[in-house]
């Protein structure tokens, strides 16, 4: 009975993992093999690996901690409006091109930043150059990932039924026990998958690490791959290093596979239970929230503000008159919409397959099958854009011109990039809906399009809206493959930004960065509303 439900998902996962593998295979084949021997004994690489791990673990930890604290604070105090603000900030941080974000962070925490100005005004010693090094890397990664974590955790908290809070209040449970008995069980469900994804994002971080890490002491495996693929044109080494990165990321994902990869909000999520929380009125809680709010403002909101202000200082008004800008805007919008739609279809297929794999009636052997699906849908994050681009070029050589197909390659890369987020957003709710309705639908013969239209869509609509919005926003911001295949004929906004900043055009670059943020914001809010329905954004 489940072949029809399994096959599309397995196919989708195979495509995702297959493209990642094919790119590396193509490079290895061109090089005539791998180069394991010389890589193994490379002591410089050992150092790189150690640092890569260290910063990724610390970044994930800090992002999770701040995200959790912020989610609790918002849940306690802010109500629906605060949750909405959290949504926006999370989506903004996700789509920010790294260079833009780094400039924002530097203008707050750098030697000549706001923080230094404030310290000087108060007669205190400034931060000096302490930003550049591990602190800068961590700050940047927390900037990018804490809002995402906070959004996921807030979703989990909002899914706790109001009755649970009433009960806690009635029983006089407060402070630490609220966490232990009420919140932790909800957080526990989303923690592993969120941490896994953020770890992967930090592990493969590249430009940020270099810029804020101070130098080669702080370089990641990704830099070594970049150097091998680009400067040295040592394809065997590039393929080998890519495989190592892939293997490490796969191992981590598989280790997390036995936990559900699920971020959805659960049934009956109202997001309004916060005021019922018994710890709302405690002084400790108020104090903690005040501290969290100021830390979050410093780390996330201040750099964002700096970027927006920088954009307004730039040549914003001149932009719409430029044909290149208009073309890039259109291309970005079209790619984002297409990517969003395709991502959702693939993610849906994968979640559908996954839920029929983990049906309670099926025996243990399929849990790893679900793990493999998660792995396949996520592993592209471990493939550097330059490797994907080079691989695509090699695979298409002789068949078609990779540059002519640039829009399709960019689209494919964006879909693969968004897929893990979309899968995680849809999965829980879709599985829940399956558990609720599977037997009834089967006994009534409701299947295919009718089932989607009548049963799944109304139930999963909100999560689908989030997934679609996220995929679109991520596509708007991505400067990956386009950096290799962009040309006069085909530009996206991030590529235009990259081009303009390549030759002194700083005012324009800042304005384009702002336009890019605005576009992703419009897409995020618009699509979430459109697909998710009126009540999508709580």
């Amino acid at each position: 009975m489940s072949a029809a439900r399994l096959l599309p998902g397995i196919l989708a996962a195979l495509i995702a993992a297959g493209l990642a593998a094919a790119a590396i295979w193509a490079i290895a084949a061109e090089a005539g093999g791998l180069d394991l021997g010389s890589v193994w004994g490379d002591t410089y690489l050992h150092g790189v690996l150690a640092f890569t791990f260290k910063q990724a673990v610390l970044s994930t930890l800090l992002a999770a901690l701040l995200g959790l604290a912020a989610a609790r604070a918002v849940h306690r105090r802010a109500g629906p409006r605060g949750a909405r603000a959290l949504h926006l900030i999370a989506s903004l941080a996700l789509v920010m091109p790294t260079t833009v974000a780094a400039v924002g962070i530097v203008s707050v925490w750098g030697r000549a930043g706001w923080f230094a100005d404030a310290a000087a005004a108060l007669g205190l010693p400034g931060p000096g150059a302490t930003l550049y090094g591990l602190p800068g890397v961590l700050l940047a990664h927390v900037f990018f990932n804490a809002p995402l974590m906070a959004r996921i955790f807030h979703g989990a908290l909002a899914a706790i039924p109001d009755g649970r809070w009433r009960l806690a209040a009635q029983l006089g449970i407060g402070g630490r026990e609220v966490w232990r008995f009420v919140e932790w069980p909800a957080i526990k469900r989303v923690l592993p998958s969120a941490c896994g994804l953020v770890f992967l994002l930090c592990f493969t971080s590249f430009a940020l690490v270099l810029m804020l890490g101070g130098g080669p002491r702080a370089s990641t495996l990704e830099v070594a791959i970049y150097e091998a693929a680009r400067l040295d044109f040592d394809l065997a080494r590039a393929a080998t290093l890519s495989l190592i990165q892939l293997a490490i990321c796969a191992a981590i994902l598989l280790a997390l596979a036995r936990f559900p990869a699920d971020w959805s909000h659960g049934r009956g999520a109202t997001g309004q239970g916060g005021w019922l929380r018994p710890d709302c009125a405690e002084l400790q809680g108020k104090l903690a929230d005040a501290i969290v709010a100021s830390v979050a403002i410093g780390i996330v909101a201040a750099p964002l503000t700096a970027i927006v202000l920088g954009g307004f200082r730039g040549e914003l008004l001149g932009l719409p008159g430029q044909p290149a800008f208009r073309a890039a805007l259109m291309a970005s919008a079209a790619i984002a919409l297409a990517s969003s739609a395709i991502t959702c279809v693939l993610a849906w297929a994968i979640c559908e397959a996954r839920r029929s794999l983990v049906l309670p009636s099926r025996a243990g052997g399929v849990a790893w099958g679900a793990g493999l699906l998660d792995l396949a849908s996520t592993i592209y994050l471990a493939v550097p854009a330059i490797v994907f681009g080079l691989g695509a070029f090699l695979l298409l050589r002789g068949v078609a011109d990779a540059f002519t197909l640039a829009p399709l390659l960019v689209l494919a890369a964006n879909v693969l990039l968004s897929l893990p987020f979309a899968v995680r957003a849809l999965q829980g709710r879709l599985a829940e809906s399956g558990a609720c309705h599977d037997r009834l639908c089967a006994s009534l013969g409701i299947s295919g399009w009718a089932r989607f239209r009548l049963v799944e869509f109304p139930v999963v609509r909100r999560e689908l809206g989030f997934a679609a919005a996220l995929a679109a926003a991520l596509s708007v911001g991505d400067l990956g493959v386009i950096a290799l295949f962009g040309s006069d004929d085909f530009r996206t906004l991030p590529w235009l930004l990259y081009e303009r900043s390549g030759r002194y055009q700083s005012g324009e670059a800042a304005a384009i960065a702002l336009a890019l943020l605005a576009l992703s914001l419009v897409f995020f809010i618009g699509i979430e509303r459109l697909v998710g329905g009126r009540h999508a954004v709580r």
Partner: protein
Amino acid sequence: MLCVDDLSFGYPAGPSFRFTLAIAPGEIVTLSGESGSGKSTLIDLICGFLTPESGNITWEGRSFLRLAPAIRPVSALFQDGDLFDHLDVEMNIALGLDPRGRPGAAEKARVAAVLDEIGLPGYQRRLPAQLSGGQRQRVALARALVRDKPLMLLDEPFSALDTERRGEMADLVREIADRRDLATLVVSHDAVDAQRLQSRAVALLDGQIVPQPAL
């Protein structure tokens, strides 16, 4: 006549069962047993959600073991998740007639008729959330009925109801089974239900169905 003939099923690293049972048209059988005794497993096997290791299930001598759940001669009312919360009463029932969810005038007329039959006339536009527990059960029953299957499975249909409603519901089931000549299997713990349904009582014990002496 429904014949469950030496049907065996075992969960991996879990309990295993052997079921044998016959129900004649117009007859109601009530099945009781402790939780985990296999009641839901039996329902799932008859509905087609689980595949038995051996044995057979037949209706009027023809095996329907290989049929998909939707085309078996079975209509079931499940313990939970029996209504789609986001669809109105009419659509919930009409789905029993047209699984594509595009009911025409004829289907709507039949929905209206069955709503009359179960005593909820004019309830088409209500959402499940606007109904009482007893009314929800009736709507679910109505959907089971519109499908016109000769065999009806009811998994704890009365558990959410108070005593008075239980009695009314049991009477309704009895009445419908008689009128439509349905072979009916009711999962219920309550001996009072069994009596009011004028049913034959059986129980699940150690993975097998055994007769339950009347009180």
